[in-house]
């Protein structure tokens, strides 16, 4: 996803990552972000329902997660309690989008980084399958309504779709002989035996001695953080500086697959051996595909016919914190008489590409001459930390 930015690139934003090498070691790393962190302002001054309808149009690549976060923040502001079936249905849609994004990273971005052919056809089929989930829960009704839409789930069809999705995702990610992810020996045996584009990146990392490359000791953002802290920070974020350079109770933090799955047996084992290096991070991504599918299966049982809930208030403040493919996404809204007065969005990229965040710390001091090229190694680390925009990587050797 290396990028040469033009004018439209200016709107969608980008990361420019400058790396300097002295005597074979990375001596300096700088991240310059040109992302529009104030995009929440586009929603301000609009009726609440109109503003929410805009979210999937602005963020149509992660539109489900952004829309869900927006709905939940508005529902909190208007004192609406979403029913458990409606919550499960939204979780299902957010997980489906996260699965597609995660598999994309593995099958398209990792091989592209290494100069290999990506598996675009596999992703196309997966996307087609995932689209069936929404129809099997909401029929033809739009799902993105405040208080929830008319939910009419077809559990048999949903299970059937998830089974096929699981097969397709496993083929793309693991090849024809998936390892047991609760068993590190099975994982070790699996490495090096697949010729799929995704596993090839892990083979490269292992074979080139890059398992611990990019290790950092940045704190992990909790998957269920203190929403009161975020509400206070975002309510006072007049100049958008917190959205641009977030912290969690004063700590620079990392979010995403690794923090989310740090207690998984395989991820924990990889971390014991290689710290937070590349093999642990890429391994966490593989585990995530399996984890998302397991969650999707579990939510089927929480679904039932449900008409949704109506709003009784017209003003208030609300916050939502949801887990997305790239990490924790926060929306905060202030509503006055059904008009959005203020809106703030805090995206995962701002944590992981913070000027003192895990990318900077992971590259600083790294051996520049391991593996084939620093360009490839740094590219894999950037993709493992999963920015939601393109990046330009410039490496200068003195």
């Amino acid at each position: 996803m290396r990028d040469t930015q033009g004018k439209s690139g200016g709107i969608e934003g980008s990361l420019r990552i400058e790396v300097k090498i002295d005597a074979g070691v990375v001596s300096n790393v700088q991240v310059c972000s040109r992302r529009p962190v104030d995009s929440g302002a586009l929603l301000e001054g609009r009726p609440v329902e109109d503003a929410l309808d805009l979210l999937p149009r602005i963020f149509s690549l992660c539109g489900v997660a952004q829309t869900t976060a927006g709905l939940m923040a508005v529902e909190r502001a208007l004192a609406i309690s979403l029913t458990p079936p409606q919550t499960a249905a939204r979780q299902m849609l957010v997980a489906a989008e996260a699965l597609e994004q995660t598999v994309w990273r593995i099958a398209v971005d990792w091989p592209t980084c290494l100069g290999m052919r990506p598996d675009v056809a596999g992703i196309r089929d997966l996307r087609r399958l995932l689209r069936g989930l929404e129809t099997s829960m909401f029929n033809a009704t739009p799902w993105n309504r405040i208080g929830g839409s008319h939910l009419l789930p077809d559990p048999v069809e949903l299970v059937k779709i998830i089974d096929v999705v699981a097969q397709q995702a496993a083929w793309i990610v693991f090849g024809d002989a998936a390892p047991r992810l609760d068993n590190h020996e099975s994982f070790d045996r699996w490495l090096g035996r697949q010729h799929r584009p995704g596993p090839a990146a892990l083979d490269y990392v292992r074979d080139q001695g890059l398992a611990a490359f990019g290790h950092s000791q940045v704190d992990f953002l909790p998957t269920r953080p203190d929403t009161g802290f975020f509400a206070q920070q975002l309510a006072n974020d007049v100049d958008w500086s917190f959205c641009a350079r977030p912290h969690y109770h004063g700590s620079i933090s990392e979010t995403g697959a690794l923090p989310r799955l740090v207690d998984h047996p395989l991820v924990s084992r990889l971390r014991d051996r290689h710290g937070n290096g590349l093999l642990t991070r890429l391994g966490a991504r593989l585990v995530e595909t399996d984890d998302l599918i397991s969650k999707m299966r579990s939510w089927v049982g929480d679904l039932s016919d449900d008409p949704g809930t109506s709003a009784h208030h017209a003003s208030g403040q609300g916050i939502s914190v949801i887990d997305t493919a790239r990490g924790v996404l926060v929306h905060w809204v202030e509503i006055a008489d059904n008009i959005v007065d203020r809106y703030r969005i805090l995206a995962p990229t701002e944590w992981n590409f913070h000027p003192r965040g895990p990318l900077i710390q992971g590259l600083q001091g790294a051996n520049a001459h391991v593996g084939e090229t620093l360009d490839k190694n740094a590219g894999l680390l950037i993709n493992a930390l999963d920015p939601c925009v393109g990046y330009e990587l410039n490496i200068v050797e003195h």
Partner: protein
Amino acid sequence: MCLAIPSKVVEINDDRVIVERYGERLEVNTGLMSEPLTVGDYVVLRARTHVVAKMDPQAAREALLLFNELAERLADDIEFKSNHEAP
């Protein structure tokens, strides 16, 4: 925050197309699309490399108005706003 800026298809070459947005041309892959594209269609890109969705022209028009609004908020040295016309 992966913004979905509508891009107009201006040329088709097998599984790649040339799209234009805000005066900038990009060559992108259409391998993810199961429906055919024609010149004049509006599409959404992922990471400036792949077409991920075809857009209804009305939705594209509305989205471009929004992105023009966002453009106004950005730095003065980005001159895309004055160069773009909505479909």
